[in-house]
C-alpha cells in the first residue's frame, strides 16, 4: 500500500470531503430542487456541483461555511442547466432569496440542529387541515385534483391550502412559527 505522506494527505482530504458531502447533500438537493423544480435534474446538478467542488476543494478555506460555498456552486450549475435546457433562469433576486431562506433554515433558529429532523416537528405543529393536505399531496402521492375531490373542495382551494401549509412550514423551520397565529383564514369554501 502506498503510504507516502502526500497520498495519505490526499486520502484524508478525500474522506473529509465525503463526510461533508454526506452532511450537506440533502439541503443542497432541496435547494437545487427549488430552483429547477425537478428532482432528477436537481440530483444531477448536485452531483456535478460536488464533482466540481472536489476539484476546487484543495483551495477551499476550511474556515468558511461549506454549505454556503456549495450553494454558490449549485447556483451556478443551475444556471448552466437553465441554459442547457434553453429555459429562462430565475431572477437573481430569487436566487438570493432562496439562498437566504436556506441559510436561515440551517443556521437561523437552532444552528447545528438537523433540518430534516425539525421537519416532522413543524409538520405536527401545522393545523389539521394543512397537515392533512401535505400528507395527501406529498406523502400519499395524490394529485391535487384527487385530494381536492377527497376533501370535497375545489382544486384551487386545495392548492391554496397547500401553499398556506408550506408557508407555515417555512416559517416554522425558520423559527418564526410560534409568533404567528396558526389559524388560517383564507380559504373556506371558494
Amino acid at each position, binding site marked *: *500500500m*502506498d503510504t*507516502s505522506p*502526500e*497520498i495519505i494527505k*490526499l*486520502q484524508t*482530504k*478525500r474522506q473529509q*470531503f*465525503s463526510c461533508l*458531502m*454526506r452532511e450537506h*447533500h*440533502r439541503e443542497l*438537493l*432541496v*435547494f*437545487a*430542487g*427549488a*430552483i429547477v*423544480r*425537478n*428532482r432528477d435534474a*436537481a*440530483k444531477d446538478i*448536485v*452531483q*456535478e456541483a*460536488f*464533482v466540481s467542488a*472536489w*476539484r476546487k476543494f484543495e483551495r477551499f478555506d476550511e474556515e468558511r461555511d461549506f454549505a454556503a460555498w456549495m450553494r454558490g456552486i449549485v447556483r451556478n450549475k443551475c444556471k448552466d442547466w437553465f441554459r442547457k435546457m434553453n*429555459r*429562462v*433562469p430565475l*431572477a437573481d433576486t*430569487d436566487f438570493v*432569496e*432562496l439562498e437566504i*431562506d*436556506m441559510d436561515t433554515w440551517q443556521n437561523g433558529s437552532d444552528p447545528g440542529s438537523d*433540518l*430534516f429532523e425539525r*421537519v416532522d416537528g413543524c409538520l405536527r405543529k401545522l393545523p389539521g387541515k394543512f397537515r392533512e393536505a*401535505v400528507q395527501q*399531496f*406529498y*406523502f400519499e*402521492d*395524490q*394529485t*391535487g385534483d384527487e385530494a381536492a375531490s377527497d376533501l370535497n373542495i375545489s382544486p384551487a382551494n386545495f392548492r391554496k391550502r397547500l*401553499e398556506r401549509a*408550506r*408557508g407555515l*412550514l*417555512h416559517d416554522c*423551520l425558520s423559527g418564526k412559527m410560534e409568533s404567528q397565529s396558526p389559524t388560517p383564514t383564507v380559504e373556506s369554501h371558494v
Partner: protein
Amino acid sequence: MSDSEFSNPQNNEMKYSPKDALTDSLLKHVAANRRGENSDEFLSQIEEAINAGEAQTVPIPIRKAKAAPRSWKTIVRATAIAAVIALGALFWLVSYHLESTKPVPVSIVASSVASHESELQAPDLQTMKKPSVSPEAVITANSFSDFSLADSTLGDSANPKINIDGNTTTFDTVIRRELPLETGKSNSASDSDADYAIVGHGGYSTKGTAVMGAGGDIQVDATGSAGKITVTAGGEVDFLDSSLATVEAKPVGVKRRHLDSRYVQVGHGGVEASPLTSGHRSGAVRVDGELNESITLSGGYHVPAGPQQEGESEMLVTGLSRSRDTFSRNVESNSTRYSELIDNEWKSPRDEPLSTFSSDVDTASWTNLRGMIRSGLTIGQIPRDAVRIEEMINYFDWGYSKPDGEHPFRFATETASCPWNADHQLLRVGVQGAELPKSERPDANLVFLLDVSGSMNQPSKLALVKKSIMVLAEELREGDCVSMVVYAGAEGLAMPATSGRDTMAIAKALSRLNAGGSTNGGAGIKLAYRMAQENFIKDGINRVILCTDGDFNVGITGNESLVNLVERRARDGVFLSVLGYGNDNLNDSMLEEITNKGNGNYFFVDSLQEARKVFLRDLMGTLVAIAKDVKIQIEFNPAKVDSYRLIGYANRRLAAEDFENDKVDAGEVGSGHSVTALYEIVPAGNGRKDGKGLRYQKSPEPPLELIESGELALLKLRYKKPDSDVSTPMTEPVVPVHQNWDKASEDFQFASAVSLFGLILRDHESARDASLDQVVKLAESGKGNDPHGYRAEFIDLVKVLKAAGE
C-alpha cells in the same frame, strides 16, 4: 404527488415565491426519503462521479507532478474478487467430487488465480464504472441448490458481522474471510465495503468452511453433496474478465474437473466453440480435429495432441462475461489474428519497371516468431501470415554508413549471387536514416495508454510493461512530459502529465497499476489522445504509446472508426506506437493497421531485454521521426534484369503512381533507423520467371528501346520532413557487382539468411529446395561481430526450430 402543481414545463416563470418553492422542494425530498429513496445510493453515485471526474476532467497541470488521490480499496477488491472466483471454482470442484450422495471428506489448498505481484499495493482502477448489472459468477454443479446473490449492504464496519439464517459470520479484515458451509444453511461472506460477496446455501449434506486469506490463498474444507455457489460483486469492478473465467472439462469416463481458462494452452489445431449467444455465461467447447499440441488444464486434465475422439474433450465454460467475442478470446487460446499476406510475385521490368514500397521499421514479426519458436512450435505450426520478412530483416542492426549529404538518408546497396538459387542475383537495398544526437532530441510528450484488462495480469504482460516504462523513464529529461491512461472496463487517467525527470512519480503511478476488467480500448485511446493534445509540445515528439496484449476494438465500433481516429490524430501531429505484450491474444492485423494509419510503429515485447531494445533503441529512435511518408521506388533496367521479386513487404506495396502522390501515406523513419529490402533478381538472358515463355507469342515481345546503361536499377526515395507536407526526392543508380554471395559483406549474407528463413517459414516457392541448415550456414557466415547478440540468437532459434521438427 405530481410536479404539475408547481412546475409548468412550457413556462419557467416562478409561479410561486422562492420560499414556497423551497418548502415544496423540501417536502418532496422528505417524501422521497419516506418512500425509501436512499441517500447512500446517491452519495455513492457522486463518489463515483468524483472518482471518474478525477481521472477525466481534472485540470492537468502541464509537466508538473501531481498525485491524484486514489482509493486503494478497489484494487484489493479486484484482487479479492478474482480470488473469490477461484474460491467458487474450487468450491465447485469440491462439490463435484462430492456429487455422489455419500459424503466424502475433501480438503483442498490452492493458490488463488489472483495472486500476483503488488496486488495490495493499491489503487488504481477506481475509475472503472459500476456495471449496470452486478457482475456475478455462477458456479453450478449438479445438486447444490439454492444459492442466491447476497444483499450486500453490510455497511462499512471494519469487522462486519453477518447474520443469515441465524448463523453469524465474522471476518476481521477486508481480505480474509471465512464462509461456513453448512447443511441447509445459507451463509454469505462479504468484504467490509460490501462490494463483493460469496454466498453459499449449503447443499443437502454439505459441511465445512471456505476461507480466503491474505495473499489470495483459498482453502476449502468441506464434505457434502454437490451444489452451487454464487459470487457477486456489487462494486465497481467488472471482474468477469475472460482470464478469470473458469473452464470445466468433462472427458468421457473421467471425473469432471474445474479449470481455469488461463491454463488452457491450445495448439493451433481446431478448437471450436459451440454457439454461445450474447449474455450467456456458459457454453460448450469442443476440441475438433487434430490438436497440434496437447492441452493442459490446471485441474490436471490433459487433452493429448493428435486427432480427437468424439466427445473426448468436451469442455464447459462458465463464468464468462458477456459476449461471444470474449468467449472466443477465451477458448481459442491461440487466437492471435493475422491478416493474410500475399507475397510479391515475379515481375518483368518490361511490364512493370517500378517496384514501390513504403518504409517499414517495425520488428514485431520477428519478436513474435521468436516467441513461437521458443515455445516449441514446429515449422508447420507457425502461421504463415505471422511471418513478415521485412520486419524480420529490419529487426537487426546493419552497419550502413550514416548519411552525410543534404538528405537525411543514404542508400546502401549491394548485389551478389542468390544463396538459394545460383542463377539468380540478390539485390539488397538499404536506406540509412540520419541519427540525431540524443541531446538534440526534441522534448517528448508521451502518453502511455496501458491495457490493464484482466488478461494483462501475467508476468509477461503488465509486469513487463511496468518494467519497460521504467527503462524508458530513466532516459527522459526535464522537458519531457509523460502521462498514463489505463483502460479496461473503462478508461481512466493513471498519471496526469508529469515531467520526464520525475522518475519517482512515474514509478509510483506504475506501482499502482493492476490488471482487472475487460478490454475497452476505444474509450482509452480517446482519452490518451486528449492528454497528448493537452500537453502538445510544438516541434516536439508527441506520441501515444499503446501497451496491450490484444483485442482493441471494443468501445469504438469496428476497426474502421478506430483507424480513422488514429489517422486523424496523426494529421494533428500525434503519432501512435503500439507495443504488443504476450502472444496469446493479439489482434495482430488490427494493431498493424492502426499503426500504419497513425504513422506509427508496432513492436512485440516479450522480455525485459526486448523491452530495453524497443524502448531505448527503437522507440527513442522512433520517437524522433527524421522523416515521414518515406517511400522507396526502384526502377529496374530491362537490359539487365529479366525479372525481379521483392522479398517481404507483402502488405506494404504501393502502387507505382502513389510514389509521387504526396497524399498517399507511408511509413515514418526514426533517428538512426535503417530500412532494408531484398530483391531476388533473374538477370537478363537467364530465362523468364514470369510464365511468359509462351508458345503463341513472339518472344521477345515488341523490342524496347533502351538507353545504354550498365546500371541494374535506379533507386528513388521520397520523404517528407516531419513537419512538412511536401516531399523531397532523392535518387541513386545501382551498379551491379558480380560476386558470389560468400564474397559479399557479412551484413549481406546475414540479411539473405534472414530472408531465406522467412521464405522457408512462409513456405515460399523460392525456398522449396532450401533447408534450415542452409539458413544456419548463411547466418553463421554473416554473423560478424554481433555486439548485441541478436544474430547469435537468430542462429540459435533456427537450430531450435530445426530440432523441433526432427
